[in-house]
Each structure stands twice: as structure tokens, then as C-alpha cells.
């Protein structure tokens, strides 16, 4: 497999590239392409330096590393889109925070630029595109306008599901590998926790049901969006009140919440601590890339352009079966009616937002 990482000089792009090389996902004879996301970059030599540094670090088993700023030269079988603007990380600037709308307007043309370039030369053999940049739903939507929807995935729900598994596992004192769970919907405040998908290795029947009930602490799926919105407002207000120590206090506050709320809220203090969520996002991306490279059929939860599956329309996170590309959406037989209704509503909201952002 050849992999192209667009925006490889950004924080997340660099981390993904370093992990792909360091973990030996690609072998000798395979191509790792570092694609500059900004033709007007103030650091035009950065990627050339990064390539040399990686070669020095991992010379024993290193793929061919190519550097280009030309989107027309993207050749990867897997294309990871990490380029684009992101929110500022300084807690002191939380009050002046860009909205998701601003982010969408800033990145829409970039998504379009790279989607057109990737599709131009790949009509007969489209790559699999993994959108990491935000708003991830917009990225998926734009790439799907130019490539088959089966070939476009968004990382948001994949990362959120990894976090959901960890939040459940950590509360039970387990390793994450013993917990299966999916966090679907929109990446951000529109996420939909699919508690019906939670499985814990070694637990069944009543024990599993009572454990999940304890974890949920009396919360209901239908109440989740309102509870999340309220907790988010309170959290941001607390961080604004104390730009220096706010993120640490916010992390402590989040730790007291149920697992599904922690998944949605913890990335905010992590981001504004200036550590950002780079390591978790990169790790999840490399997991997904590795599964694609190995050609395994796997179930993942990721953003996908729905066209009526489970009554959903729009590019939201859901459980998918990957067999080199998306082969199908997992049937929702195991989901509750509330969860399906939340997903359908989320899809509708996403579509409305995208229409607003793209003027379609």
C-alpha cells in the first residue's frame, strides 16, 4: 500500500507520519507521501527536513518517503486528509473562539481543492480517503462529491469510539481491549452514544446490563443531547473564568461525569491545555490505516455519507464494515429506537449545516 498524508507538517499530520514509519505499517518498497497542505506555507522546507529526520530515526525498515506540495501528484492507495485550520489552543482566547461555522468556511475550499485533485487522476482506481480535519462531516461530504462514497471515511466517530471504550474500561478497571462500544453521530456536540453496542469481555446477561446501568448513572439516550449542551456551556464558562488553571479544573470536572459525557467533553480541556488531542487522533488514524493495509474485514465506527441506511441521510458517524473500502453499514437490529431516532435527527442536522456552509 502507498499512503499519502495531506497536511503532514501540521501537528496531527506529523504525528501520523511518525507513527506510520515508527510502527512499520509500511515496509521497504512502499511509498509514504508527505503532502504539504498549504502552498503558501511559511515553512516550505519543513517536510524535506521531516523526511530526513525520519530516515535517520527509522533507517532499518523505512518506506520510500516522498515530499510534494502539488496536490496533483497525490498517488496513495490511502489518502489521509489532515490539512486545514483548527481552533486556537490558548485558553485565554476561548472567549474569542472560532465557531464550527468559521472552521467550516475556512476549510471548505481546502477540502474541495484536494478532493478535486485526488479524483482527477483516479477515476478507475479511487483511493480510500480518511478525513481527519474538521468539520469532519463537511470533509466527508465534499470528498464524496468527487469520489465514490464507499471510499471516504471520517475519523471523528472512530476516535470518539476509541475514547468511549476507554472511558468505560477505565471506570471498570479494565484494559480497553476488553470493551467494545460505538460512539456515532456528529463529531463534537452532536455525538450519539450507542450504549446498545457495549460489550464487555467476560460479562453477559444481567451482569452486563447492571454494569451498563451503573455506568450510565440513570441517564437516558433521549436526554443526552440536552445534558451534553448544558455541561458543555458550564465547562466552557469555567475555563474562560480561569485561562491558566482552567483546563486542569475542567478535566477534574469532566472526570465526575458519566462515560458518554466524558467522551464528548474531555477533548475541550485537552485541546485548550495546548497539548491538543494529537496523540489520540493519530493513534486512532494509524489503527484504521493499519486495518486497511492488512485488508482485514473489520467493523469500525466512522463518518460515512449515508443515503438512507437506517433511515439516515448525511455524513455522520455509524458502524461500518470495511473490506478495503466500506462494504456496508452495520444493520441496526441491536440498536434501541431512541438511538436510531437520534442518529436520524443528527443526519438531518448535519445535512442542514452542510447546506448552509456550502450554499448547495
Amino acid at each position, binding site marked *: 500500500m*502507498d499512503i499519502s498524508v495531506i497536511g503532514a507538517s501540521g501537528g496531527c499530520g506529523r504525528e501520523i507520519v511518525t507513527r506510520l514509519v515508527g510502527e512499520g505499517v509500511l515496509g521497504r*518498497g*512502499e511509498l509514504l*507521501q508527505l503532502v504539504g497542505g498549504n502552498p503558501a506555507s511559511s515553512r516550505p522546507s519543513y517536510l524535506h527536513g521531516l523526511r530526513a529526520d525520519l530516515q535517520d530515526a527509522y533507517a532499518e525498515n523505512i518506506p520510500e*518517503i516522498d515530499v510534494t506540495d502539488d496536490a496533483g501528484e497525490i*498517488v496513495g492507495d490511502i489518502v489521509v486528509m489532515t490539512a486545514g485550520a483548527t481552533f486556537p489552543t490558548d485558553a485565554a482566547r476561548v472567549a474569542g473562539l472560532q465557531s464550527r461555522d468559521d472552521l467550516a468556511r475556512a476549510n471548505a475550499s481546502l477540502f474541495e481543492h484536494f478532493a478535486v485533485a485526488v479524483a482527477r*487522476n483516479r477515476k*478507475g*482506481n479511487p483511493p480510500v480517503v480518511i478525513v481527519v480535519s474538521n468539520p469532519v462531516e463537511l470533509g466527508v461530504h465534499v470528498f464524496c462529491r468527487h469520489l465514490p462514497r464507499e471510499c471516504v471515511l471520517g475519523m471523528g466517530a472512530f476516535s470518539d469510539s476509541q475514547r468511549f471504550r476507554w472511558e468505560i474500561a477505565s471506570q471498570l478497571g479494565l484494559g480497553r481491549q476488553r470493551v467494545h462500544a460505538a460512539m456515532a453521530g456528529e463529531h463534537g456536540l452532536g455525538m450519539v452514544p450507542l450504549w446498545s453496542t457495549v460489550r464487555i469481555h467476560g460479562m453477559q446477561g444481567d451482569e452486563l446490563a447492571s454494569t451498563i446501568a451503573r455506568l450510565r448513572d440513570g441517564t437516558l439516550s433521549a436526554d443526552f443531547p440536552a445534558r451534553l449542551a448544558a455541561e458543555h456551556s458550564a465547562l466552557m464558562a469555567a475555563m474562560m473564568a480561569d485561562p491558566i488553571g482552567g483546563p486542569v479544573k475542567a478535566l477534574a470536572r469532566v472526570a465526575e461525569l458519566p462515560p458518554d459525557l466524558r467522551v464528548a467533553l474531555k477533548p475541550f480541556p485537552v485541546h485548550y491545555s495546548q497539548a491538543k488531542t494529537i496523540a489520540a487522533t493519530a493513534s486512532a488514524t494509524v489503527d484504521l490505516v493499519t486495518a486497511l493495509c492488512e485488508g482485514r474485514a473489520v467493523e469500525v465506527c466512522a463518518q460515512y455519507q449515508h443515503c438512507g441506511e437506517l433511515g439516515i441521510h448525511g455524513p455522520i458517524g455509524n458502524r461500518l464494515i470495511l473490506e478495503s473500502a466500506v462494504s456496508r453499514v452495520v444493520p441496526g437490529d441491536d440498536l434501541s429506537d431512541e438511538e436510531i431516532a437520534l442518529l436520524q435527527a443528527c443526519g438531518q442536522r448535519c445535512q442542514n449545516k452542510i447546506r448552509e456552509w456550502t450554499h448547495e
Partner: protein
Amino acid sequence: MNSPTVDYPLHILAIGLHDRPGAVHSVSDVFSGRGLQMEAFYGTSDKLSADGHASALILFHASPDRACLVSRVIRRLSCVRTAELLAAADPRLVMSVLVANEVATVPADIRLTALDGKTALALGSPAAMQDWLASGKAPRRLGALRLDKAPEQDHPPS
């Protein structure tokens, strides 16, 4: 050899290489990694090339999309200076083969030159040459096919 891609069109990839160990291996990896078979590979080092630069000509069958992708990937390799995908009828390509010097029907686009009483040299484009050899009207082949690409510029190597 039975190639699963033989029904696809014949392509010729003309590659300018940096003359260093492993260069050919890197190029061939791109083909083998995609299940493409090289029908022929003609390569030379700097010293043996007419223009002083290592080069390779690779014949392979593939769908046009895959041929295009392979050439684009190869162009991005650090050991590759240039990579150009050519059609089998490209006038810059000359295919040659030693054949028996015997009576034969020679198409207008093939040149047949007697070398001695037993041997002749046939020259033509890859497409014309392959059609002729497959037609049953060509003389017996005495050697393997050889492919060359005319240098871009008509001056001696520096």
C-alpha cells in the same frame, strides 16, 4: 508465462533513473506490489546509456487507469528522475530483433536489413513489430526482442 493482465493494452514506461544500487528494485516493487507483470525490462547504467543517464524501458500490460497510476507512483520515487508512459506505437520507440535472413513479407513500417547470409536485423515500432512477429509472415526469430527509445536531444553526453 501466463499474465492475468495480458488482454489489456501494451504500455511502455520510459524511466530516467539515478544510477545507484536498489534503483531497479524500487521500480520493480511498484509493479509487483500491484500484481503487474513486466513483459520486458531494458535497463542501462549511466556509462552504457547514449545520453549518459541511467534509464529503463519497461513493457507491461495493464488497464489505462492502472498504467497511469503506476507511472505516477514511479515518478515519485527518489531514485527516479523522469517517468513517461508511452503508447506501443510511439514513434520514438524502436524495437529490434535478429531474424533469419530468409524470404519474408515485410510491412511498410518494418525495416529489414541483411547482416550476413544467415542473419537479418528487423526494426520497427513495438506495435508494428509485435503484430508482424505474431502474423506468421515474419522470418524465424534468432534472438530476444530489444527496445530502445530515441534520445530526446541529438547531442553527445556531457
